[in-house]
């Protein structure tokens, strides 16, 4: 700032000049010149608009006493005679640092002076404008939610009711503080006892479409209500909620649930209440000759009953490997019923082979989401592999996408894509970002993280609460068939299974794969 006009020192002869010029503020400054509570903002630029920077910059000029200074642009811009040299400095736009860090060669005194002399309307802003902003705009629903969460944290209130708040987005940052939730410890006999919190989160009747991954890291979550939102796909992380006792996901337009939801019914989980209807779930359509064995084949509830009568019809001679692997809680009756054919996807996620059940069906003409069930002996045969044989190794595209998801620049990658680039890249990067937000997806066969699924199929599992021996018997008794028509139908829950390679397909078929090794 060597060539800036050097302003008079603060103490410089104040009596000569009138203080009655309506600038009473300045007077206060004189008493404590260096300590200012005004915002730390100063620019020596007359007018900070961008057009001024294209050519050599005009220096700010001063005339008259310092406290009545205004930027030269306000007055008729005559040059200050003491300031002959101009535009020597190479320009860098530094609104703040130029003053307060003294990096422009100023010292503190100078900058304080400069600040005072600047145009008030430009000078005052920052702090005030922020206050004004919060006054004028109503805070977003998420800000309110965050405040409410903070309040609950402070008060030790386990029940967090965020329902009907027009929430469209719930970010990880909002939920994260809840991980540190702790109860106000009750005092029993003069001893503080630590109790495990039992968090209850109610997000009903909002407009949520996605859920943050942090929600599924809340180990102490016992009640989760997502009723009446727009969540079409529940993240697989739901299976991690070990202490969840009540889950309500009705009225969301979901077509399937993640396969990982079965974890909630395993022995080490505590689920008691599981409300999933109504939703837009896919229904199984059994092939003709099989349904012909059922007398009234049009009645959909017969699907469930038929299965119970011939429990091994779908997978004859064996139970699904998954049933053997996970011990389910005795409170729940969970069993594999049927699956669709396997859908094979290319490395970029485009459909190659098999049934197509993407989300578009939701808006399509299909009124009832029926999907045909694969034949009993169905052997999924993948399309021809790229290399000489099928392998479980991820594609280079996948490897690169994983690297993308690990960079902190992920949100900007889309703008950094070289042009022209394949039209599916933005979609893939959006998928990567979404997975970072709502949690990773794991292959349901080999447990490997993946970004682009290579196989997909839907399995129908019968999930029913065991009401004791009596209850089960009555549900199966023919006398009550009509009454339980819906119950039986609704027990069939479609679960989406995804695999990370073309070898990750339903398990019965492992033997066949060895023959499949193609040599080209």
């Amino acid at each position, binding site marked *: 700032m060597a060539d800036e006009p050097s302003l008079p020192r603060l103490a410089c002869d104040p009596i000569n000049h009138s203080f009655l010029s309506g600038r009473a503020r300045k007077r206060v400054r004189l008493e404590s010149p260096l300590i200012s509570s005004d915002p730390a903002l100063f620019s020596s630029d007359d007018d900070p608009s961008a057009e001024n920077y294209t050519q050599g910059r005009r220096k700010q000029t001063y005339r008259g006493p310092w406290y009545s200074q205004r930027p030269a642009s306000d007055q008729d811009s005559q040059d200050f005679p003491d300031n002959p040299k101009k535009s020597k400095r190479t320009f860098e736009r530094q609104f703040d640092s130029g003053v307060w860090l003294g990096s422009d060669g100023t010292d503190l005194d100078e900058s304080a002076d400069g600040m005072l002399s600047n145009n008030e309307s430009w000078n005052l802003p920052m702090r005030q404008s922020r206050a004004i902003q919060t006054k004028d705009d109503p805070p977003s629903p998420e800000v309110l939610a965050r405040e409410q969460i903070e309040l609950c944290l402070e008060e030790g209130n386990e029940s967090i009711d965020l329902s009907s708040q027009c929430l469209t987005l719930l970010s990880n940052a909002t939920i994260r503080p809840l991980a540190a939730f702790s109860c106000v410890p009750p005092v029993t006999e003069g001893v503080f006892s630590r109790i495990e919190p039992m968090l209850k989160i109610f997000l009903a009747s909002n407009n949520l479409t996605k859920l943050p991954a942090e929600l599924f890291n809340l180990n102490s979550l016992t009640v989760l209500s997502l009723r009446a939102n727009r969540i079409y796909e529940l993240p697989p992380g739901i299976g991690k909620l070990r202490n969840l006792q009540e889950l309500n996901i009705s009225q969301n337009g979901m077509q399937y649930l993640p396969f990982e939801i079965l974890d909630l019914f395993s022995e080490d989980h505590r689920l008691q209440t599981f409300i999933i209807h109504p939703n837009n779930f896919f229904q199984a359509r059994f092939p003709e000759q099989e349904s012909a064995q059922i007398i009234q084949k049009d009645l959909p509830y017969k699907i469930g009953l038929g299965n119970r009568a011939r429990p091994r019809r779908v997978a004859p001679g064996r139970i699904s490997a998954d049933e053997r692997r996970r011990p389910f809680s005795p409170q729940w009756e969970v069993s594999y019923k049927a699956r669709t054919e396997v859908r094979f996807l290319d490395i970029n996620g485009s459909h190659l082979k098999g049934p197509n059940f993407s989300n578009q069906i939701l808006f399509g003409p299909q009124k009832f989401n029926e999907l045909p069930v694969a034949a009993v002996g169905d052997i999924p045969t993948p399309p021809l592999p790229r*290399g*000489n044989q099928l392998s479980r*190794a991820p594609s*280079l*595209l996948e*490897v690169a996408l994983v690297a*993308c998801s690990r*960079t902190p620049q992920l949100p900007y990658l889309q703008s*950094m894509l070289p042009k022209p680039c394949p039209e599916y890249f933005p979609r893939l990067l959006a998928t990567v970002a979404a997975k970072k937000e709502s949690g990773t997806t794991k292959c349901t066969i080999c447990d490997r993280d993946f970004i682009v699924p290579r196989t997909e199929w839907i399995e129908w599992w019968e999930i029913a609460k065991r009401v004791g021996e009596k209850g089960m018997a009555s549900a199966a008794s023919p006398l009550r068939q009509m009454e339980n028509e819906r119950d039986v139908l609704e027990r069939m829950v479609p679960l989406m299974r995804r695999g990370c390679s073309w070898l990750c397909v339903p398990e019965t078929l492992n033997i066949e794969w060895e023959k499949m090794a193609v*040599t080209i």
Partner: protein
Amino acid sequence: MASSSQNQGVSEYVTLISSDGFEFVLLREAACVSGAIRRMLDPTSRFKESTTGRCEFAEIKHSGIVLEKVAEYLYYNHKNRNREDVPDMEIPPELCLELLMAADYLDC
């Protein structure tokens, strides 16, 4: 693995050449993990590459560094082709977009 190329007396190795002149000699079988390279080397395609066994990639940017990673990937894939639990392959984050482009171009 008896590949058709061996039957025809073609070399077991192929050379990938980057636009800035780096050459990578790879097992033909490993290189064929990439759909594009496999089509280039296919003897029935009558591409020049199929007879010389030398594939030039002028289209890949910074191709030396990228192609080195590609070669590493091809061997990683080849090595793990029969494994059940495939280890992860690390690639430096600054190369992720270039490799994304390369993966699309090489179809692998």
